[in-house]
């Protein structure tokens, strides 16, 4: 047996061990893995094995805002989940000790800068670079360039109009550079093939349980549509997330399963069931 063969076997053993450890983490350990970015949402982190993969493209389908009378899906307006993006950007920002730059590519995903400030902490605001390309090709090029830069640690982009080859290019580059790319896409783009690591669908939702008068906590239900390379440990991949306006943080207060009677929940369940039956 040659030396090269021996080295390859050793690498293979290490990789298998790493995969086994990751599976153990997903079984209930709270410590995030080194190659993961903890979302800060306990249930979701547990399901993903520690958080979002640090090197990969993650697609987030925004909230559709169809006016009554509009039948064509292309006419539907959509809004990217900016609170969730800002929260995840903060999570990635806090994970790194060197405070890397965050690049926001595409005007659609630029949040109102106030959400990038947490109390007196303006680091995210000061380390954010906003890029506004005119077209899809420009956005893909800017994402590519940002991923290759040593100064950038995190990329948030408007992913509308990205096709399979573009997502493949970004996914491979993100993996090679071990950086996270969050791409926000219109919901109608769900049917387009993509090489993204994970795909998420966001809908507006009411808080479960009794509402306290005089309080508004913007909330959303997020559904994990795809998680490549790992089987989610939870059967029902939907969670309720809530924006804490005082702290500027997105919380995961309770499972969506608590929303037994809400029409939103019924819709989510019906869709999940339909997808399961389709896959069967």
């Amino acid at each position: 047996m040659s030396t090269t063969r021996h080295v390859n076997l050793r690498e293979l053993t290490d990789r298998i061990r790493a995969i086994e450890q990751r599976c153990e983490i997903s079984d209930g350990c709270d410590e995030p893995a080194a190659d993961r970015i903890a979302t800060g949402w306990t249930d979701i982190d547990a399901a993903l094995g520690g958080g979002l993969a640090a090197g990969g493209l993650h697609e987030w389908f925004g909230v559709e805002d169809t006016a009554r009378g509009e039948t064509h899906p292309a006419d539907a307006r959509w809004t990217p989940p900016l609170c969730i993006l800002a929260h995840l950007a903060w999570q990635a920002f806090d994970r790194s000790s060197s405070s890397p730059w965050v690049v926001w590519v595409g005007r659609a995903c630029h949040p109102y800068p106030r959400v990038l400030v947490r109390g007196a902490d303006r680091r995210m605001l000061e380390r954010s670079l906003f890029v506004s390309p005119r077209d899809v090709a420009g956005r893909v090029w800017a994402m590519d360039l940002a991923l290759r830069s040593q100064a950038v640690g995190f990329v948030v982009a408007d992913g509308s109009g990205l096709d399979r080859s573009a997502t493949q290019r970004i996914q491979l580059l993100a993996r090679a550079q071990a950086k996270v790319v969050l791409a926000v896409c219109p919901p109608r783009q769900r049917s387009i093939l993509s090489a993204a690591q994970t795909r998420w669908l966001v809908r507006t939702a009411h808080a479960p349980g009794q509402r306290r008068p005089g309080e508004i906590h913007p909330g959303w239900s997020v559904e994990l549509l795809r998680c490549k390379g790992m089987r989610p440990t939870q059967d029902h991949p939907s969670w309720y997330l809530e924006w804490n306006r005082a702290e500027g943080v997105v919380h995961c207060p309770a499972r969506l399963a608590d929303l037994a009677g809400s029409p939103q929940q019924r819709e989510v369940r019906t869709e999940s069931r339909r997808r399961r039956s389709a896959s069967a």
Partner: protein
Amino acid sequence: MTLAHARSLCAGLAVRDQPLSPDTDAAALRRLARWMLRYAPVVAPEDPDGLMLDIAGCSHLFGGEREHMRRIADALRRWGLRPRLAAAPTFACARAVARFGESDLTQIEDDMIGEALSPLPVAALRVEAKTVDALADVGIERIRHVAALPRDELAARFGRELLMRLDQATGAVNESIESIRAVRRFIVSHAFDGPVRRIAIIEATTRELLSRLLGQLQSVQRGILELDVELCRVNGEPQTLYLRLTHPNRDHAHLWKLLWPKLERVHLGFGVTNIALQASRTQRLKNEQAAFLREPSSSHEPAALGELVDRLVDRLGGAAVTCVHPAESYIPEKAFVYTALREVAPREATRRPTVEPAVNPAPRPSHLFESPEPIRVMSLVPDGPPVWLEWRGRANKIVVGIGPERIAAPWWARGIAAVRDYYDVEDEEGRQLWVFRDGASGEWYVHGQWI
């Protein structure tokens, strides 16, 4: 005398109005100081209208001290100036005699300092005006009067500065001046034997010239901030390409990536005869130890960010690459300012505490519309909080509402924006909106959304 007074005295007075600009004058003085480096190795500008030259050891090159001074005076007269020169063993003595002496050209020997200074007024010692006034109050107006007084009493009554200036003038205390430095120009050029129209040759030549230019910069540890490439064409105006960088850079590959797209679009006309590259603006780079395996570190971050921003700006335009700063305004659309990134500051500079406007701690939506969108609302009481709204073709009851938060433009800008009463509302569909009632028109608008 004011201009109006002069006009009243002299009818038909021709006026050449030159606006006073201290910065422009100071810049011109520094340019003149650099030009004077050909007469002395150490030249320091003395605002607002003086130059100090250290000519020790170099006068023999100009035929002696007297001839040296005469040449300097002639050179300055050729610039249209009326110079007053004095050469003395000390800077302070030379300055005092040049400004307050009787002759335009004075040479003072080593043992004549006291005699030269004695008849001059106290102001020639560069002391503060209040010290001059205080001395004048007690009848001391000339330097010889000051020199005759006991030193300890002088210091106690008029401060130590007076003594120090006197000692500097007499040579009892050394005085040094900070010389202006000559601007080194980094230019490389190549002249072809004849007109060249092949882009491959021009590309290879420009690459070579860029390498030579970067070699020059490397020896002085500087990086390029602005690069001008001039192509002299036969029977045509020279064509100049400009590169503006956000961070000093000396990386050939990066500069070539920015330069080549511009170069290949140049109209060569009947051919190029000469190519010149000039680093018109450079900046010192941090010295770095050469490493065999260079690992990314925080010290490389500004350079990496600068390269990223350069590429983005080059392709997308300066307005498409921005950063955000808080602004002093309560108006939501003016609370933050997007500014084009023109310069990437070093990491140490970004950490330096700076006074920035405070960010309003009140909750704000994550998505603020570019312009407020009109909505229809229903309220239980006139001008009260809405209980129903219709936005983007969908009508819903409002489940929760918080407000109002009144936001008004400052009194000096009341004409720009009226008073607005903002409410945070959540409708039946779970949409969290930021709506306001315009105080002037009474109309309702959606201005943002928590999403």
